[in-house]
């Protein structure tokens, strides 16, 4: 007892003596400096991405409007592409989010616990497949199977602007792109949603069940409200991914750059920024390259904003649940 006391007293005595002048060896300073500069380098890279894109985009912004591809200046060139990009990404989000929430519910609430991890891994495999392979799949497997549907939609729902036809016979439509992108972002949305669903306090769930709620009522009252910000954050991350997706769109979409149209089932579709760059860049020279880089800058800004918002939502949620 007494020894413990004096030990503690000595610790207290010693502490103020040590902290003002900690020993800083050369190796320590070097190592701390190197790792710190690696972190700063990442900030520099991100700033560099913006800076170099701006530098290479400037010639297109200052060039006479007639020299820019299309002949009406950069804004007129990028505008329709931006429209197509957002349209395709929103379509993908519309398709992926309900499915992703369903998959997350299945894995966290419905599937037998022993199977759940393996099934989750199966869904994660979707995220591992390279985007170009999705393009192959989209054009060879998916598109031909969807053409009858497009014909039917154009015939029976043609009064809606989305399905006004004439229906594409190849299936290389905006709708197909939306499905392919939806499949590609599904694992991202579902991974985050799943994580949040797993954090739902079992007390909430058990309380709901104990009151006689059915499983669905328990989910609606306890799981979904708790996981809402996770769903929103995951969907935004997926949106960011869908906006920047390149090769899958480039392969699947039959695009007419410059077109602005809500028609999802015809063979004339607005192009997207990323796929347009992939298709045009290898054969472009001079101002054409600068214009494409300017469009890439627009895409960078758009995805940056979406990702910052998404991360903001996800992080706020993480802090909140960490506190409780």
């Amino acid at each position: 007892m007494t020894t413990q006391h004096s030990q503690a007293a000595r610790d207290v005595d010693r502490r103020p003596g040590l902290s003002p002048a900690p020993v800083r060896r050369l190796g320590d300073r070097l190592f701390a400096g190197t790792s710190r500069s690696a972190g700063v380098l990442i900030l520099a890279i991100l700033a560099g991405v913006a800076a170099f894109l701006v530098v290479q985009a400037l010639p297109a912004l200052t060039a006479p409007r007639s020299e820019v591809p299309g002949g009406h200046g950069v804004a007129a060139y990028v505008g329709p592409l931006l429209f197509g990009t957002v349209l395709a990404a929103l379509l993908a989000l519309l398709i992926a989010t309900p499915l992703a929430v369903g998959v997350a519910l299945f894995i966290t609430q419905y599937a037998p616990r022993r199977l759940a991890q393996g099934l989750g891994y199966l869904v994660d495999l979707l995220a591992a497949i390279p985007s170009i392979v999705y393009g192959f799949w989209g054009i060879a497997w998916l598109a031909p199977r969807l053409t009858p549907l497009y014909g039917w939609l154009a015939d029976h729902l043609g009064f809606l602007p989305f399905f006004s036809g004439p229906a594409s016979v190849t299936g290389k439509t905006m709708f197909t792109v939306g499905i392919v992108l939806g499949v590609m972002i599904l694992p991202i949305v579902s991974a985050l949603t799943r994580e949040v669903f797993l954090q739902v306090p079992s007390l909430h769930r058990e309380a709901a069940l104990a009151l006689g709620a059915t499983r669905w009522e328990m989910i609606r009252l306890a799981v979904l409200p708790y996981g809402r910000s996770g769903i929103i954050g995951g969907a935004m991350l997926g949106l960011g991914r869908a906006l920047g997706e390149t090769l899958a769109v480039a392969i699947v979409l039959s695009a007419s750059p410059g077109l602005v149209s809500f028609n999802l089932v015809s063979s004339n579709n607005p192009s997207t920024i990323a796929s347009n760059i992939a298709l045009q860049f290898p054969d472009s020279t001079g101002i054409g390259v600068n214009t494409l880089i300017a469009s890439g800058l627009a895409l960078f800004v758009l995805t940056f904003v979406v990702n910052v918002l998404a991360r903001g939502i996800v992080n706020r949620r993480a802090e909140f649940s960490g506190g409780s």
Partner: protein
Amino acid sequence: MSQNSAPQAPAGASVATSLAGAGLRSRRRRKATDRLMTFLVYGAFAVTLIPLLSLVFEVVRRGIARLDGEFFNSSMVGIVGKGGGVYHAIFGTLIITGLTVVISVPIGLLTAIYLVEYGTGRLKKAITFLVDVMTGIPSIVAGLFAYALFAIFFGPGIRLGIIGSVALSVLMIPVVVRSAEEVLKLVPTELREASYALGVPKWRTIVKVILPTAIAGLGTGVTLAIARIIGETAPLLVTVGITNATNLDPVNGRMATLPVFAYYQLTQPGVPPEFAIDRAWTAALVLIMLVMGLNLVARLISRFFAPKTGR
């Protein structure tokens, strides 16, 4: 009973009210809703499996035809129509991916060490947040950035293997940082404290105690990061281009890579098209096998090299 538990779980209150007037008919309806939703949730999972299964099946079915010795042993020099292979593209992919790893792993690992062991205050917060945002940079934008960077020094139209590596590094670094950060956080604080108590300097503690403890997780993270970038096509399309011959020099001229090879064989097959399209599908199959193989290796690393926790 229901009122007792209501304050504990906010969800309970609304169940209680919704159950208050529950007659037989409404109970039947609730059961029906429950069954419908169960059906929908199972359906969502089943629908999700369709793309995965059909994709793997389709790629294997179409790609298996040219999965032969010639495919791996020949380049595309002098090939019109039949024959030809990906010898040049496989080496291009390996070299560019290797360079990417050499650039990304030290930067990513050191950043993770900074964030976990040294970082404080605003700089740490800023880096953590921007690394997250950086994972969302579209791959084509990373390619344009690398091109724009090198075009300033080498003039427009430049295509080099090393530019592709720089572009892929922009995509790989944040993935490495995130996974390494997670793993380093898992190293027990007791190990650090024990090391400090023995008078070991901090940097030696990191190198000799923390990194060896975390090595399995770090290996898994790096392998998954490689799997993530090895199939990237868009950045290589704008920075490395394509060539028919074998070029093993990343600082001299265009190189062939597996994904870009697959893309051009499918979209510009030439006449007659069927041979090139076969090659494209086989290249896609090889890509999938590479990615799946790397995922498997990552799992094996984490299983067999994990530190013995005694739990």
